[in-house]
């Protein structure tokens, strides 16, 4: 169990799919990440970030040296941070145990490598307390990477499983079902169902690519609804920033962080670059900023930080 101090306006920054690799220009990428961090701080209620959550695929085609460089850099912000694993984090030149021990080594890391019997690694909960009273819980879950598909010779994507869901339910019950948020990498099928069947009570932002979820249903969403979860946030599909409210729970894609690998340019939204004369299609890159308040209320902002020379910021609220 990990604790952080809560106060109204507690700010949580979600970064996802950073995708550093052998092919990354790390000097340029660090400049972008720093600009994003400064923009997030400037837009947070108290001008500071209280918790940084990385929702997977931080690296792919990476070595120990590149991976350590990224996490050293993020840890140098001196913000408490934690990580959920994506499907590509294991595709580096290191054993996974090395990656876990690296993450556990930072003094401001909240990542824990538990030898539990749950599916995936690093499933954990962070309690946000105020004057001894538990106000919020933040769940970080491993949605796995790949598994056997129903189609021969193919791999399917992972999803949140029974044991993880049972563990979450137990923790939420013990905590008196205080409001909570959950972060993981691969969207569950609920994203697809809510979108395709038009069941969401509110929908904002864009779906520019297929919702790449598992073929398998996850039991997590139903239990999340029952246990006062206010929002589920994932990454994985870089071109989607779609966010919906479904059965009272926000299902959100985090904004893809940085331009590594691939990202989408909006077909409907434009921005005016600082110092530029013409508007350009908005690049769906940046971060997701959440401000948590009393009573299970939270604000959700997408920070679209462009990779132009001035790092133009476009902020949109859900």
């Amino acid at each position, binding site marked *: 169990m990990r604790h952080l101090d809560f106060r109204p306006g507690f700010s949580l920054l979600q970064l996802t799919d950073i995708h550093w*690799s*052998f092919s990354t220009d790390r000097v340029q990428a660090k400049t972008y990440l720093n600009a994003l961090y400064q923009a997030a701080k400037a837009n947070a209620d108290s001008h500071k970030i209280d918790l940084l959550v990385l929702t997977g695929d931080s690296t792919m085609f990476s*070595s*120990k040296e590149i991976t350590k460089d990224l996490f050293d850099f993020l840890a140098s912000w001196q913000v408490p941070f934690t990580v959920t694993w994506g499907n590509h984090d294991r595709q580096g030149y*290191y054993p996974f145990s090395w990656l876990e021990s690296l993450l556990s080594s930072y003094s401001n890391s909240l990542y824990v490598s538990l030898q539990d019997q749950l599916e995936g690694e690093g499933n954990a909960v962070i309690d946000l307390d105020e004057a001894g009273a538990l106000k919020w819980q933040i769940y970080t879950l491993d949605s796995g990477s790949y*598994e056997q598909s129903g189609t021969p010779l193919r791999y399917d994507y992972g999803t949140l499983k029974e044991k993880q869901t049972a563990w979450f339910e137990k923790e939420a019950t013990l905590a008196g079902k205080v409001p909570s948020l959950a972060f993981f990498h691969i969207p569950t099928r609920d994203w697809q169902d809510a979108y395709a069947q038009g069941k969401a009570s509110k929908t904002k932002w864009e779906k520019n690519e297929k919702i790449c979820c598992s073929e398998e249903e996850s039991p997590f969403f139903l239990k999340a609804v029952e246990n006062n979860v206010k929002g589920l946030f994932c990454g994985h599909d870089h071109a989607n920033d779609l966010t919906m409210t479904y059965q009272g729970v926000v299902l959100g894609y985090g904004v893809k962080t940085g331009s590594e*690998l691939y990202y989408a340019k909006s077909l409907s939204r434009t921005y005016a670059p600082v110092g530029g004369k013409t508007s350009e299609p908005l690049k769906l890159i940046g971060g997701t900023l959440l401000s948590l308040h009393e009573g299970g209320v939270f604000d959700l902002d997408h920070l679209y930080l462009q990779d132009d020379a001035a790092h133009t910021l476009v902020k949109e609220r859900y």
Partner: protein
Amino acid sequence: MKEKIALKILETVYYPLAAIACFLFVNLLSSEIVYRFENLGKNFPFLLFLANAVYFLFAFHLFIHPLNAKKRILTAQVNGVVLVASSFLVILSVTIFRMNGSYSSLLLGGITPLFPLDAYVGSFLLLLVGTGLYYTGEWLRKHPRPYPDNVHEWKGKGAKIATSVFRSIFVLVALYFFGALLVSPFLMSFSSSHVAGLVSFDLLMGLPSAMVALYEWNYLDKEPLPQRQRLYKNSVITTLLSLILALAYWLFQALDPFFLIDGAASLLPLDFLLSVKVAPYLLILLSLASSLIAFLHYLDRNVPKKPKNP
């Protein structure tokens, strides 16, 4: 023959280095492709260095196994020049990148901890090797000496080309997976639940290279009569090995479906980029196909049959 054996030993010693180069080349190239060649400029010298390291193995093999003395000289000189020119390009690129600040240091790190110093030093060595190869050709031109040529039994030019292409592809696949096998102790996550499956997959990754070794040391340069008998024996052995390792793969896949996903994702980039099981089936099919071709070759009447009792 002593000279040829000495050269074959050198080739065998060099093979693991070429295998690691091939493994790194495929991974770096895959990274560049999926990242839309965003950093190709900086990685180009290293890619070229790795390609040169693999190329040298092929050039050296052709030098060891020439069709005739004239071709041996030509092989040495042409490949020597290509290796020198290509290695010089790497050295020049690294020097320019270092001088213009694209490389802030010769020990930037990245795909290897020594990048790009390893490409720089390695290319100097390959430049020396290429120079040596060229002058060996020159020396052989001036001082002809007896050397055992290779005898091939191709039926026409089409068969020759098809054989050359298939063998090259087979060796490249064998090199990649042997490289993966060599680095696997450092990259695989050998948790106790996956260890049996991963060890069996390591053996499967080593099988094509074992077949290359068998071909090199237990088939080539043998007299025609024992060569035919060896072909039969080798093809039966490799077919059995392929089938055993294929069965082991299917068995472990059924018992522990996550053994490759959790343990070997970094070794099989295409599989986990495309979400398709490329590697296991490529290894199984290539090993079985190659064994079958060897067996069909044994049945070919062009190869002298064992004479009846005199």
